[in-house]
């Protein structure tokens, strides 16, 4: 099914009167958490509505209600003026609602075509799946997304992360939907792909679809959205038109106070070299990586998604085995053969994939925080709960964690708060070198400032920080020096003296100046 067919055209420029989708009085509770309270929201055809709010404000929960995955405890959903119920994901697409979810939810082992059409595959006369038509339609969908380079027969597993994301978008587009929801769609995409996505959103807008766009990035919101709705603590606290609303107003609505978005100037003394990596190589992921990190320094790593930055950092932290190269700490070559080795030496890695690699869902907060520090909190191998609580309290409170108790399962925290637990966990090991991989990915603006402030604090205390980030403002605002990686190799290293964004982007993409 292509996006062009069977859509309602609205006269361009005409004032839109009727909302396509209206929610009112929506409430949803989880055991111990009231995620949404009396929420209302309207989406208009041909318009992009931005949904903003702090971590845990209930945005994704709303998305899941709209796509039939969660059932609201109360409230009404109307599509085109008629009240509907959405008992299953299937019901949602029958009412023309489709979504790109915050987590990429696809099938690694299945082909691209099937990933796009699973659940609504074209059928033959006998009711069996028509593979031929399905492949053809998949190619068509990918083509409209400008992703014609993706082979419809490839196994999804063999695709890069950005391409996977495009497949997810393709899947949403393959459903002939009137209402398209995007939950932080740009989080895993690089600048170029984000541009393509914006073109697509423009296209959907012109087709008269109603788009709900969730993001923590204000530049994107101002770029693409027509209206906004703000959630705070599960309640709708404001809505309106983007033109004429300042960023400060939105932030104020979101957090209930104003927040400085200026990157904290840190004035740490840059000392001697602490960590020196030379010629680090891996058979397939990276090659000849060499850099040094000094005391009190923030070293930024920039690159397009998939450049191999995370893999390098995981090698430094002892998770990935290398084929060649050395790592030296204070001038002494050390052997890092496991994470435990790295942690012992004071090198810690805060991973990018929070859910998979960061938090241990099922364990309470304090046990998550103490996990790498157990050797210190325990008495000769036996647990000492009091020490663990003290350690966990110290660091989680510093990061302003929002939790009802330290014995709460981390799984019940919102994404941003989980990230705080992960950072607390690593700070508690009193490291010398801390590697932060996309530390503010998916973190709301208030917490982001806290994390940045914290980094400044760390280097001031004499720690060294490596920050992997795909966000240019963050890289430019925080780093002392920037290493740019491209396709598994170091493309360039810059001192951050009047460094500009364009230089970095060119280096990352391999475009000559």
């Amino acid at each position, binding site marked *: 099914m292509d996006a062009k067919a069977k859509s309602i055209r609205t006269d361009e420029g005409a004032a839109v009167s009727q909302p396509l989708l209206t929610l009112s009085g929506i409430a949803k509770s989880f055991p111990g958490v009231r995620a949404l309270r009396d929420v209302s929201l309207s989406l208009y055809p041909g318009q992009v509505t931005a949904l903003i709010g702090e971590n845990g404000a209930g945005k994704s929960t709303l998305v899941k209600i709209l796509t039939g995955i969660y059932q609201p405890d109360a409230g009404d959903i109307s599509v085109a003026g008629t009240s509907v119920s959405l008992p299953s994901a299937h019901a949602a697409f029958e009412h023309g609602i489709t979504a790109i979810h915050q987590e990429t939810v696809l099938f690694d082992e299945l082909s691209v075509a099937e990933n796009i059409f699973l659940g609504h595959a074209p059928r033959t006369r006998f009711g069996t799946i028509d593979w031929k038509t399905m492949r053809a339609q998949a190619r068509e969908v990918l083509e409209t997304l400008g992703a014609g380079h993706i082979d419809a027969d490839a196994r999804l597993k063999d695709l890069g992360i950005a391409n996977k994301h495009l497949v997810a978008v393709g899947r949403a587009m393959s459903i002939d939907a009137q209402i398209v929801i995007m939950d932080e769609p740009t989080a895993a995409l690089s600048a170029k792909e984000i541009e393509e996505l914006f073109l697509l959103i423009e296209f959907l807008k012109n087709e008269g679809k109603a788009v709900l766009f969730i993001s923590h990035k204000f530049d994107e919101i101002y770029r693409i959205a027509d209206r906004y709705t703000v959630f705070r603590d599960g309640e709708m606290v404001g809505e309106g038109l983007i033109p004429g609303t300042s960023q400060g107003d939105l932030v104020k609505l979101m957090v209930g106070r104003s927040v400085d978005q200026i990157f904290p100037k840190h004035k740490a003394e840059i000392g001697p070299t602490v960590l020196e990596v030379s010629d680090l190589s891996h058979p397939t992921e990276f090659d000849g990586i060499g850099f040094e990190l000094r005391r009190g320094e923030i070293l930024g790593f920039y690159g397009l998604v998939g450049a191999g930055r995370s893999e390098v950092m995981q090698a430094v932290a002892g*998770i990935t085995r290398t084929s060649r190269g050395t790592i030296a700490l204070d001038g002494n070559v050390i052997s890092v053969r*496991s*994470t*435990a080795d*790295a*942690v*012992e030496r004071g090198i810690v*890695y805060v*991973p990018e994939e929070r859910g*998979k*690699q*960061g*938090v*241990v*869902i*099922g*364990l*309470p907060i*304090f*046990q998550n925080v103490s*996990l*790498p520090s*157990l*050797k210190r909190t*325990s008495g000769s*191998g*036996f*647990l000492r709960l009091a020490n663990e*609580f003290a350690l966990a*309290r110290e660091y*989680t*409170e*510093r990061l*302003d*964690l*929002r*939790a*009802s*108790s*330290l*014995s*709460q399962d981390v799984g019940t925290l919102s994404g941003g708060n989980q990230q705080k637990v992960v950072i607390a*966990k690593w700070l508690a090991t009193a490291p010398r070198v801390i590697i932060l991989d996309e530390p503010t990915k998916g973190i709301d603006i208030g917490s982001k400032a*806290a994390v940045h*402030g*914290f980094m400044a*604090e760390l280097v001031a*205390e004499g720690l060294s920080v490596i920050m992997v980030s795909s966000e240019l403002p963050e890289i430019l605002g925080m780093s002392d020096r920037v290493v740019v990686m491209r396709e598994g190799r170091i493309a360039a290293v810059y001192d951050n003296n009047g460094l500009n964004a364009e230089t970095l982007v060119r280096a990352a993409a391999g475009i000559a100046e």
Partner: protein
Amino acid sequence: MSTIQPTQARHIPDRLDRPLRSALLGWEALLVAVAVAIFIINSFASPYFLDVWSLSDLTFNFTEKALIALAMALLIIAGEIDLSVAAIIALASTLMGMAVQFGFSTPALVGIGICVGLACGVFNGLLVTRLGLPSIVVTISTMSLFRGIAFIILGDQAYKGYPASFAFFGQGYVWWVVSFELALFLAAAVVYYVLLHRTNFGRYVFAIGNNPVAAQFSGVRVDRIKLVLFCLTGLMSGIAAVLITSRLGSTRPSIAQGYELEVITMVVLGGVSILGGSGSIAGVVLAALIMGLVTFGLGLLNVPGIVMSIFVGLLLILVIALPLVWRRFMRKAA
């Protein structure tokens, strides 16, 4: 280090209402209730039940399997499983029997049994951790392999002629009606309780069971701990082999057939999540006791073993299902 936000940080309490504790207590309370109920029913159903010697004999029905269940609980909490435990018993017993033919003494026999168990555990553990194979698959195959080796060695023969002193382990009493097997099981239960609930090692086991990747990223030596856990199940199977061989006074390659599923049933009935990540030793001990009570109680009524297994099967599903149904009911009521 100083605080970044001089503005007062929010205080987060350690615990609210001890939800974790009460949940665990809830499970164990349920098992205690079941055990007491079965005990009472048994004492009404058969006049022979309430007799110290009967009760002492009863413990033989579960001690060997329960010893393995202790280690298996840790393994399952860590998200792995070992189906080869019964086969390990067969192999260890066979090699002990072989040693008897060469005139080894009782301590040497015990040593051999334990070492063979340990070696089998290492073999399983290495296959799982080094080759990254799913443990259920590895141990289905080593289950045939270990018992197969026992069959190759023994064929249709039996080993007997164990030294008289060897009989103590499976038939001896430490004090009055307390058999050596029971005493060993109780001691092992305490050791495993401390290991799982009171040490760093135990915490690592829970962390691995809940999220092995994050545990590895947190500096937990995941593979090493899994290897140790396979060694522990191997070790306990070796110990069980010593006890069973001593109790039977002879070895056949078909010894302990089908024990693996009973051990796993015990662990699961004890509230250990088969998906890994949660469980307690107290639960496993209670489950062992319950299974002993059920089989012995029905045995006194001369109910065939297979009919008892219906009860055990029903108990397994009911005990797991009841809390779920109850919670769902409460939520509806609320």
